[in-house]
């Protein structure tokens, strides 16, 4: 690996000298932020974060790119052209876990640092994967959001997706594990809205009738949280029942404004783009090595600790409330 890397580096350098014009570009660490498709608010925000990291690091040039629609073939064409440009690092949010592996392997063989973020690539196709958060962090966050507004304790209910939704079940499990940290908070029941707007709405109505003293509804699903907020508004219980959980700022802006939801959480794309760029820089410059157990710094976001699969969780889900909803509601 070491020899082939040096060999490729050598030929690349020779090509560079022949080309002449590229010499000044090489002073910068060129990091390509490859997204699922261009023109999506979430990824535009991530690019903003990448630029922020580049400004902090100084000698970084961010190439923000991606295909027109969310296909693996389109991303492979983009990756091929990045390999040809001999960029220093590729940070990709993949359209396909497996299909990008051959192209990314080729990139790594030619000495390019490859990481995935947001939507991952199979382990053999990248050096590390950056998850926006982790199940324990999400489980803790959803109960914390409810508890923070209930200093004297109270009754909360969970409105989930379906009984078989893997993600939601894991998050609720993780939440139950940390209930001891929130004395006075009692989870009275869990109901299922099947991720359908009307069923979630009816389930939320039912919760308020069955438990007249209910203080909060936790909906760890973007469909359920919007439906529950509407049910609270329609029942005239704004101020009595606080809706929280995981939701999208664009869909939740109304609920924050009306007061039906005081706060909710989801990943922050700006932080995600920022951290991905930072990690790519650390690996590309050789300051850090991606290995199980490694801790790789990512600027203001702290450090990423890698597990056995070379994956790591960035941070707690980001909390959105009336102070920042206007900024983010137009992003995603």
């Amino acid at each position: 690996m070491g020899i082939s890397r040096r060999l490729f580096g050598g030929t690349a350098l020779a090509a560079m000298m022949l080309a002449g014009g590229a010499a000044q570009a090489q002073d910068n660490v060129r990091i390509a932020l490859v997204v699922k498709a261009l023109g999506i608010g979430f990824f535009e925000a991530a690019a903003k974060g990448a630029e922020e990291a580049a400004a902090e690091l100084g000698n970084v040039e961010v190439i923000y790119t991606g295909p027109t629609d969310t296909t693996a073939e389109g991303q492979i064409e983009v990756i091929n052209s990045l390999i040809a440009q001999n960029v220093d690092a590729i940070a990709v949010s993949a359209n396909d876990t497996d299909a990008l592996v051959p192209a990314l392997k080729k990139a790594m063989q030619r000495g390019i640092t490859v990481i995935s973020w947001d939507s991952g690539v199979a382990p053999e196709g990248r050096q590390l994967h950056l998850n926006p958060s982790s199940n324990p962090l999400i489980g803790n966050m959803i109960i914390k959001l409810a508890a923070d507004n209930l200093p004297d304790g109270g009754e909360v209910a969970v409105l989930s997706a379906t009984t078989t939704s893997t993600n939601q079940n894991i998050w609720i499990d993780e939440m139950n594990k940390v209930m001891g940290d929130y004395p006075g908070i009692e989870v009275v029941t869990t109901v299922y809205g099947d991720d359908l707007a009307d069923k979630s709405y009816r389930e939320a109505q039912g919760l308020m009738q069955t438990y007249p003293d209910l203080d909060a509804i936790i909906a760890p699903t973007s469909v359920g949280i919007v439906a529950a907020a509407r049910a609270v508004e329609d029942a005239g219980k704004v101020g009595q029942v606080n809706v929280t959980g995981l939701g999208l700022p664009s869909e939740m802006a109304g609920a924050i404004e009306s007061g039906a939801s005081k706060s909710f959480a989801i990943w922050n794309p700006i932080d995600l783009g920022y951290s991905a760029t930072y990690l790519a820089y650390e690996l590309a410059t050789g300051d850090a090595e991606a290995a199980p157990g490694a801790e790789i710094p990512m600027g203001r976001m702290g450090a990423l600790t890698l597990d056995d699969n070379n994956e790591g969780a960035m941070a707690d889900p980001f909390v959105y409330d009336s102070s920042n909803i206007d900024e983010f509601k137009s992003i995603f």
Partner: protein
Amino acid sequence: MTETASHGQAPRHIRDRLQGPGARLLKSWELLLFAVAVAIFVANSFASPYFLNAWNLSDATFNFTEKAMIAFAMALLIISGEIDLSVASIIALCSTAMGAAVQYGAGTPEIVLIGLATGLACGAFNAVLVTKMGLPSIVVTIGTMSLFRGISYIVLGDGAYRGYPAEFAYFGQGYVFWVISFEFVLFALLAVLYYVLLHRTNFGRMVYAIGNNATAASFSGIRVARVKFILFLLTGLMSGVAAICLTSRLGSTRPSIAFGWELEVVTMVVLGGVSILGGSGSIPGVVIAAFVMGLVTFGLGLLNVPGIVMSIFIGLLLIGVIALPRLWAMWRR
């Protein structure tokens, strides 16, 4: 020309062609397109320092080889006055069939056979609907476009087939010699094969005859339906070949594979000088068009031009190259 002939005393000389071969070549679509290709090549070399590099150019060929394989068969089909818009969906179905076979432990030869057979079956399905039932091919293949990919979606949902055997990767990732990939060699071989088929055989003459006037061709003893049936089979088969290459290159199958390729294939054919109304066109034209499209997308990719701008550029190129001869004719008058 007529003036000099009437003045001269020498015996009247009648040319067997209106223009000499040199003049014909100079005015040909292929030469114009070739000039465009060279111009793009030169422009790319100046625009990006990374363009003139054997490995990079080799990578660039993957942008068009698979599509071009289908474009050859599609060119014949369009010359005959028909069209097949289901080709990308045939790829999806072939790939799904191959992926399913892998789950049952099929080896590389079986996978390839299943891919080709599925392509042929899809082509036959289109062919029966068009030639036996007399339905318009554009309507039939818009229908089968949804049908074939729909089956893939039903089988796979949001899942994927993976676990293709290691030898299978050769078709899409292997190199025959240095930077010359297997796909590129296959592309070149097929180009020669289709050149011979269209320009050097009776079958090729029949395709032109049908495209110019199917009724007249029929009265001349050409079995129109049979020729068209074969052309649909060929298009299906080539989609199967492309599916093998693409699946091997990706190493996995998802129902969204090759999404939107039908339009890129048709663009390639039309850019290659094949009349969308049928009756004229050539394989060399399609080959050059494949290179033009590959070079343009790769060159713009090197400059990190966003994909949407690239599609605008390809669209303008298509309109420009097609409008140029018309403008030239208007200017001459």
